């Protein structure tokens, strides 16, 4: 067997410190970060603010929490928003940053933030963490008894402020879902240039947790490519010193598949972490996520049902968290009240269903798990072949050749030769395999499943079927049975 390894350019400590300071010098609030003081502050935090400990406690007690999204620009309103979340039973609180902050446009943010503060209006679509800085953000975190996670941006300002998650390793979200021109080589460089900030904190006894997203399935598409990317993200993060991880598992709306994938993803991540020698990196839970297109703003019933579906999948799979948006997701940024009503609905399911500790044993789940597992292993084997045992080299070559590919990417450097559609039961199948190294018998399985739908609808599945399926779940109809009144 080839030696498994991860390419990494390690940099020395002096350079690491210099790079960290350069990053912080991009905006004056960076001066508020004193590295040693940040470590001391992190160590002073109670367990209820430490993300990985909160997740482990939930799991041990057989409970779960919503992991929502929330961000509004004015500090006082952000505190109010997060207090509302806590009151609805949420103990994992996000600090979603605005889009300009994510792209480093701090001067523009400053100007708009001033206008927000003077008019009281939320003109940014999130909390501008960099411009707010450490002192103000600590006020937020000290106001509420829960663990906090920066979403989208934050860097060491977030860590120094007392947030307890941070990202290391390759993030496919940045490459496959949010970038237009980034190459996979650039993703490797940006994530592997040896920043090792998370490792630096771990060496000092501060464990920052990370959620793995993988390459988002932007439309109905089997999850095997995403799970491959979860594994790549996990081992590259572990290599940089990340000690606590958990996968988001993107639920596409077919419950049998969703439950199968929730079972499969952490199992395979654990296996590959061990194979690469990272036995000491913990997987502290699993977080089903509601990912496909959300119902339109006007469809309040659909919005509730959609949230409750994901909550139910989380409860039945005995997860310790569920990644949920609010009923306002289709409308934009949620208010305190719509968050409250959304997460009370989720909490109802958690308290009633999760705590029943239901054992699910369904043959269909085993089949879906086996199919996806075979696909994941086939793609990963090819990646390790391409990289001659090096998972990062292999990934670069795999993306460039479409061995790793996903549909509807905004990125121009993605092959985009694959396509997914739903089958007669609403499960996600490959319509076009592109260059994915899926074994022949599995390809045949997908074709048979699609043929069942074609028979039901009396037409061949094609590009237009894929487009129609973009709206399937958000409109509340994914299976092939015609409407009752037709």
């Amino acid at each position: 067997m080839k030696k498994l390894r991860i390419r990494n350019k390690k940099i020395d400590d002096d350079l690491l410190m210099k790079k960290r300071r350069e990053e912080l010098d991009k905006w004056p609030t960076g001066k508020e970060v004193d590295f040693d003081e940040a470590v001391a502050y992190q160590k002073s935090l109670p367990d209820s603010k430490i993300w990985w400990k909160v997740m482990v406690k939930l799991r041990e007690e057989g409970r779960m929490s919503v992991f929502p999204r929330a961000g509004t620009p004015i500090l006082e309103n952000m505190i109010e928003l997060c207090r509302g979340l806590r009151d609805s039973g949420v103990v994992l609180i996000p600090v979603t940053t605005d889009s300009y902050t994510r792209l480093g446009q701090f001067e523009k943010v400053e100007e708009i933030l001033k206008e927000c503060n003077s008019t009281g209006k939320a003109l940014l679509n999130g909390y501008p963490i960099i411009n707010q800085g450490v002192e103000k953000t600590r006020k937020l975190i000290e106001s509420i008894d829960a663990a906090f996670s920066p979403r989208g941006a934050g860097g060491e300002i977030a860590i120094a402020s007392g947030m307890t998650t941070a990202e290391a390793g390759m993030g496919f979200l940045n490459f496959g879902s949010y970038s237009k021109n980034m190459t996979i080589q650039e993703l490797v460089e940006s994530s592997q240039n040896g920043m090792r900030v998370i490792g630096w904190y771990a060496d000092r006894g501060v464990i920052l947790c990370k959620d793995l997203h993988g390459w988002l399935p932007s439309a109905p598409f089997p999850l095997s490519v995403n799970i491959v990317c979860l594994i790549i993200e996990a081992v590259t993060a572990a290599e940089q010193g990340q000690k606590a991880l958990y996968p988001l598992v993107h639920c596409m709306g077919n419950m049998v598949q969703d439950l199968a994938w929730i079972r499969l993803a952490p199992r395979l991540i654990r296996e590959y972490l061990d194979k690469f020698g990272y036995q000491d990196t913990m997987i502290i839970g699993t977080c089903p996520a509601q990912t496909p297109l959300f119902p339109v703003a006007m469809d309040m019933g659909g919005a509730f049902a959609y949230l409750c579906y994901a909550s139910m999948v989380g409860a039945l799979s005995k997860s310790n968290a569920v990644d949920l948006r609010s009923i306002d997701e289709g409308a934009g940024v949620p208010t305190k009240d719509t968050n409250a009503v959304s997460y009370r609905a989720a909490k109802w399911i958690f308290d009633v269903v999760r705590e029943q500790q239901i054992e699910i044993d369904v043959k269909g789940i085993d089949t879906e798990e086996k199919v996806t597992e075979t696909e994941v292993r086939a793609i990963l084997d090819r990646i390790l072949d391409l990289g001659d045992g090096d998972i990062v080299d292999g990934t670069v070559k795999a993306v460039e050749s479409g061995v790793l590919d996903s549909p509807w990417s905004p990125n121009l450097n993605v092959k985009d030769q694959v396509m997914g559609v739903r089958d007669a039961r609403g499960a996600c199948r490959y319509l076009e395999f592109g260059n994915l190294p899926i074994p022949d018998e599995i390809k045949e399985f997908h074709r048979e499943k699609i043929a069942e739908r074609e028979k039901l609808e009396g037409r061949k599945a094609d590009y237009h079927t894929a487009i129609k399926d973009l709206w399937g779940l958000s409109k509340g109809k994914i299976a092939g049975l015609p409407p009752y009144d037709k």
Partner: protein
Amino acid sequence: MKKAPTVITGTVGMDAHVIGTKVLSRALRDAGFNVVELGMQVSPEEFINVTQETNADAILMSSLYGMAELDLKGFNDKLMEAGLRDVILYIGGNLVIGRYDPKEAEVIFKKLGFDRVYPPEADIDAAIIDLKNDLKTKGKM
């Protein structure tokens, strides 16, 4: 026969939501238009420059993240300066942050110079019929 009208598509500002504009581009191509597809995160300046370079007849913008109004501050004036007064302008998506009345969004964006303003999940075929009618009215089709 007149040559196919040229239209520009893209998601404006810092918005990464791309599926809507991809689907729209394909539908426009299927309907016989010459489509210049700019994809996500297109600045207002890029829309204007490409419109000038390609002598396009219409711009169909998408936005889903609620900040289009900020992105498009002064867009109308810039179009006038560039001598593009005649270009047909459509925008569609989630145009305001929060739960809003699409009629309010229509007022805001018509002031910014847009001819038509579409709510989320608007019917693409209906929008293409609108576009053909507007092009005919301007004698461009």
